[in-house]
């Protein structure tokens, strides 16, 4: 069955928190409901669960990849085309260490960026029910659920007191 989203807009943080409570009472799961804000609030402000993520794996994987590639480039090219310069050995560890370090950091940073975008569940092709008022300071509570339950969602959202705006959208 196709999913639909319903968005309730609020001007007060407590109204948004009440709406979330109403949705829980109405039987909606945590992962069906989301708070949308135009500014980061302290965690737990609306009574939402702490989001879990695994971002910390990404820089480690990236660093390992970067280190390996840099090691292969530096050691591989110097062994393939050995040319003694400045009286230093072909595999000069201090010199290689610099490029391997930069490679590791580049890998870590690139993978971290990818990880941030991925863990943020971006890019998101369909915005679902969304309002431009959110970036103006309104707080949105959105429910993504089956078509049959959207009315119940709307009822729960309206109980908390919106400023007259319920928006429906496609997921």
């Amino acid at each position, binding site marked *: 069955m196709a999913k639909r989203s319903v968005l309730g807009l609020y001007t007060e*943080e*407590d109204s948004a*928190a009440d709406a979330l409570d109403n949705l829980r009472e109405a039987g909606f799961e945590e992962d069906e409901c989301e708070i949308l804000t135009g500014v980061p609030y*302290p*965690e*737990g*402000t*609306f*009574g939402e669960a702490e989001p879990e993520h695994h971002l*910390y794996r990404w820089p480690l994987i990236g660093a390992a990849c970067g280190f390996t590639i840099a090691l292969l480039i530096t050691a591989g090219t110097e062994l393939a085309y050995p040319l003694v310069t*400045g*009286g*230093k050995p072909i595999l000069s560890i*201090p010199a290689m260490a610099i490029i391997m370090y930069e490679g590791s950091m580049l890998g870590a940073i690139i993978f971290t960026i990818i990880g941030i975008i991925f863990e943020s569940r971006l890019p998101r092709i369909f915005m679902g029910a969304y309002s431009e008022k959110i970036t103006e300071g309104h707080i949105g509570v959105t429910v993504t659920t089956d078509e049959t339950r959207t009315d119940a969602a709307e009822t729960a959202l309206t109980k908390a007191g919106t400023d007259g705006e319920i928006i429906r959208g496609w997921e």
Partner: protein
Amino acid sequence: MVTDPGNRVIESYVETDNSAEARKAVSDGILNIHKVTSNRFWQFAALFGIMFVLGLIGFVMRLSSGFDDKAAWGYYVALFAFLMTTSSAAPMVAIAPRIANSHWRRPISRAAEIWTLAGCLNLLIYIPLIWLLPSLENGRRSLWFYGQQKAQDMDSCWVFCWGGGVPAYSPHIWATLAILGLVVLGFALLWLSILPDLAVLRDHGEGWQKKWGRKLALGWRGTSAQWNWQYHRMGVVGAFYFMMLVFVHFFISVEFLMVHVPGWIDSLYPITHAHNALQGGVATVMLTMFFLRKFGGYKDYIGLDQFWGLGKLLLALSLLWFWFWFSSFMVLWYGKKPSEQAVLELLVKGPYLYLFITIFLLVFILPWFTMIWNPVRRSVWGPPILAGSILVGTLLDRIRLYVGAWDVAEKSEMMHSMMHMEMEEVPGTIPSLGIADAFVIVGFIAGSVLIFMLATRLIPAINIWERKEMLLYKAEVQFHRTKVMVMGKPR
């Protein structure tokens, strides 16, 4: 409360628990722990006392060996450098976060400041070194550009024209003044910091603590003028202490280390030495915090915030250790100049290779690979273990550098080659550790710890007035459906 034109509240005041009862609870809580001295404390003090006596025996043995054999004093100088790198630098943990207004430093700043008292032991240890340091007349490189030391084939004398009147014992004079200045500034910093708490002891302490509190508090009453004076003086003295610390490390690293190794021209090394001191100081305070929490009864005062804050600092300083070392190493290694290769042979690749690898692991690799993990950094056990590793590594590092340098100094003096740009001979072995040296190292480290322990019998190890000040600026409040911590920044 502040409202907007639409009458909606947009700012509100936070209530902090700053009542007289709360403030009294802070004083009483800390004093109740401070008043009690357990048997275990006296047992450890006795043990450290015995070790200190052994140290004094070793000191006398070392003195009786005379000042002619420089190589024999290598371990002694290394110990002096180690104590300057640890106990003398510990107050920086109080000074820097105080300037930055970090609230997490409050429970630990006093412990950091108390370490300045070990400075008098450092001064005692320094005294024989005045006789050990060669005068400029003997012909050696120095910061003082002694008038008679002209470079070969050099016509220009502008460098020396203004330095021509420099006394031959300039390094001795200035190093002594610098170390004395550091000790005096340290005492001043500590006294300024403890004044309000001495008043607390005077008013609420018992027995000899009350008596000494009355004598040393000098009529402190807590007027606005006194608080302003104290705050500003602490800032000024703290800044001067930091500058003096860098200055002292500058002297020690040049006059007691680099000048003795022909060809060792390393402009970065004074900074590296000062940085090692910061790292050693932070590690010293970290271990102190651990012991105060575990054995001192201060579990409710020294918490995760303190270990986490210092842990981050320790990680950054360990990474900087590598950067400073590599910056020097890269320049010396790359050029392949024989004089610089000889220096690397002495300090890194030659007889001290395994020692260097051990130091590298203890001071850099181990802290880096463990402290990048949040669960280790954000714990009460992780950072102290790494602090211990760093302190052991720092001691070994001082031994590597100073024993090696003074071994070369002995040989260079014999060959009149201290002014040369290249070592005549790189020693092939490490001078052995004698019984006197072992006594001195163990004994004086124990002596520093003993001084700290005895000082905490008079001076509360947790800063009472800073804890009370925290009550003004910290509150836990309800923020919609969650609780948050609110921290004020008064300045």
